[in-house]
């Protein structure tokens, strides 16, 4: 006996089947053209791959991390390369945000400021310095689809406080662990084992 699922499948297969003649009729008279285009496409793709790899590498290293002030006064930190944390610090400082930035390989962390995956679940972990709750703030949602690593609200920083950004990275994964240090300087990072592991669930690009 046929069920709803069987009848629905039959109707849907009919929809799929009607897609087929249209696709074939488009291809048939243009067979050679299609083949030439395909060949050219393959060649272009192959050349593109050869060129794209160094180009991508050059592009990544050539592109600077951008620090932008938004109309609402917040500062968006766009991270696209991970070789010069001091430049990120300088740009943040120029916008009035004292900052310590470190780029770290997965599996390492800075002694004295160990990675905490539960950072975000703390009650007001950053007093609003790092933006509103993702999901309630359209800007935060939008940020997370792009390359904005952090959105900082400088007006929430108190005198003597410093933003600390520890960033773990590799080709397809980035983890950001922002913190606010209340007073004093932040010592240089002494790497010790630990931190997030690439490939762990929830850690990825």
């Amino acid at each position, binding site marked *: *006996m046929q*069920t*709803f*699922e069987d*009848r*629905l*499948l039959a*109707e*849907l*297969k009919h*929809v*799929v*089947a009607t*897609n*087929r003649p249209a*696709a074939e009729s488009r291809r048939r008279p243009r067979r050679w053209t*299609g083949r030439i*285009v*395909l060949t050219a*496409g393959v060649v272009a793709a192959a050349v593109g791959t050869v060129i794209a790899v160094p180009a991508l590498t050059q592009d990544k290293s050539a592109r600077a991390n951008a620090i932008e002030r938004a109309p609402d006064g917040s500062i968006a930190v766009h991270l696209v390369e991970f070789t010069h944390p001091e430049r990120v610090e300088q740009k943040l400082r120029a916008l009035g945000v004292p900052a310590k930035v470190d780029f770290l390989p997965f599996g390492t962390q800075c002694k004295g400021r160990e990675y905490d*995956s*539960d*950072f*975000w*679940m703390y009650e007001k972990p950053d007093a609003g310095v790092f933006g509103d*709750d*993702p*999901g*309630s703030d359209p800007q*935060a*949602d939008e940020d*997370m*689809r792009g390359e904005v690593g952090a959105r900082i609200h400088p007006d929430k920083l108190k005198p003597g406080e410093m933003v600390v950004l520890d960033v773990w990275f590799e080709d397809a*994964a*980035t*983890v950001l662990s922002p913190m606010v240090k209340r007073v004093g300087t932040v010592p240089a990072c002494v790497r010790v084992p630990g931190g997030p592991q690439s490939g762990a*669930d*929830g*850690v*990825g*690009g």
Partner: protein
Amino acid sequence: MAEPENGLSRIRHDPEAFEAFYRRHVETVNRFVARRVDDPHTAADMTADVFIAVIDSAHTYRPSCGNEIGWLFGVARNVLAANRRRAGRELRANQRIAGRRLLDPDDIDRLVERIDAESTGRRTYQALADLPAGVRALLELIVVDGLTVTEAAAALDIRPVTARVRLHRARRVLRDVVSAQTPAMAYAKE
């Protein structure tokens, strides 16, 4: 240029490939729908809409962005949102397959049973209704539908790490809404 093979593109024009996909996932789609609507006729329409959308958008699936389940839930969520946006009359006028027309009395009985069986998930789904959109979407997929963090991220087109951050922030909400004994909650604690 030829359309790149992405693992699902064939289901747009190959009935056999589509049938294989349909049989793999029809139960999942049925349950997804039953956790969101309590009327069997609407459920039948929505199920048909989801698979029509699958056919139309199969070319958008990229295995590198996650498995089929995450992508399928993303499509289903879009269909659900579109259905809510559109007026019923317009929806019926544009519907390519009206699922309700394919129902017989036995089907309706089965759909009602399935809808009853998903009542707990539906209550949870409704309890999340007042949350901010981004948090609600993530919790729906993990707590109501049982997806992994990675699958839910794929369905929402966000990075897994973003999903995890969002999940951490929603931890207190999870505790209030969902019993700590449920498997989904246990998973969400990981």
